[in-house]
């Protein structure tokens, strides 16, 4: 009875491992495809590729997660995984907030300078000539 249960849980564990590896591989391929289509910049892609690799390593190297979690004094290895994932995601979000703030500031400066230059250019041009802004506004 006990042997059967152990066997069953081992099968589940293997299935889980396969699933994790499959997901990681899918993420890897998807990210790779996004970069190929120039939809995702390499510097952000690296993060996700790295995360996928970590997943694969953890799935293949069974003892690693257990060892890390016992070193950290976490009873259930999966909790160590959750904790690490959570920290990773929060750090990433903070990083994105920083990037967004910087981009907003930059786009504000660009918009202001564009508007001021636009005013200056249309000021210098005689009104009967076609204005570049009229062309671009189409």
């Amino acid at each position, binding site marked *: 009875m006990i042997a059967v249960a152990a066997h069953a849980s081992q099968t589940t564990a293997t299935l889980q491992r396969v699933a994790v590896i499959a997901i990681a591989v899918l993420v890897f391929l998807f990210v790779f495809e996004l970069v190929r289509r120039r939809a995702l910049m390499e510097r952000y892609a690296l993060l996700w590729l790295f995360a996928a690799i970590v997943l694969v390593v953890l799935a293949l190297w069974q003892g690693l997660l257990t060892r890390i979690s016992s070193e950290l004094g976490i009873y259930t290895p999966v909790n160590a995984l959750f904790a690490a994932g959570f920290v990773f995601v929060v750090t990433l979000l903070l990083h994105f907030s920083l990037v967004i703030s910087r981009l907003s500031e930059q786009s504000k400066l660009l918009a202001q300078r564009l508007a*001021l230059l636009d005013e200056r250019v249309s000021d210098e041009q005689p009104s009967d000539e076609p204005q570049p802004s009229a062309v671009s506004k189409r």
Partner: protein
Amino acid sequence: MNRHLAIVPAHNELGAIATTIAEIRAAAPDFDVLVIDDGSTDETAAAAASAGARVVSLPFNLGVGAAVQCGYIYARAHGYEIAVQVDGDGQHDPRDIPRLLEVMHGDPHTHLVTGSRFLEHGNGHRSTASRRVGIALFARLVSALTAQQVTDPTSGFRMTDRVGIELFARDYPSDYPEVEAIVLAHTYALHTREIAVQMRARTSGRSKISASLSGYYLAKVLLAVLVSSLRSHPQGKAGPLSEAAP
């Protein structure tokens, strides 16, 4: 060219912009009028231009803070000595501009003069009760932080001189900037004053603070004000990009 500039931020103010410009030109003829069209989707820019204002059109809506700052960058680049902000929606009465100027010239230490609704109890347009409570809260906070009496920190009816123009061209808060701008001016040791004005009900457009002084606004401004008062050596957060005047 005049040495004085009226900065008029306008976002979809087609109904009021021409009147506002005409009023400024009548009440303060020695002011050039610059309308910052903040990504309007209506014909605000064209209406402003045909009313005789210079128009700077932002390519998309940046918010009143960035629009006003754009005006200050313009003022700095063109060497204006005095700049006054007048809302494009008809709330501010341009006939008060000469009085603001008088106070500005009356005291060489004053760099920023604000038109306040609450300095005297006039019978002008009153805002809603919740908004008045919020304004009173900010007034206390800002007065405490700046050690100066500030009764109407949310008023966008402001005049400043070359010192203020250069400061605001370099660094001006975004979103709902009035309260923060006063604290910012104080951080740079600019002496500010208020005079009593009456504000009118807006004749067009909608309030920029539509959910007037909502929790978000309150929290955001509180944070900004506190952080800005903690900056011991404030720097233009914009960096070198904004330094280059067009």
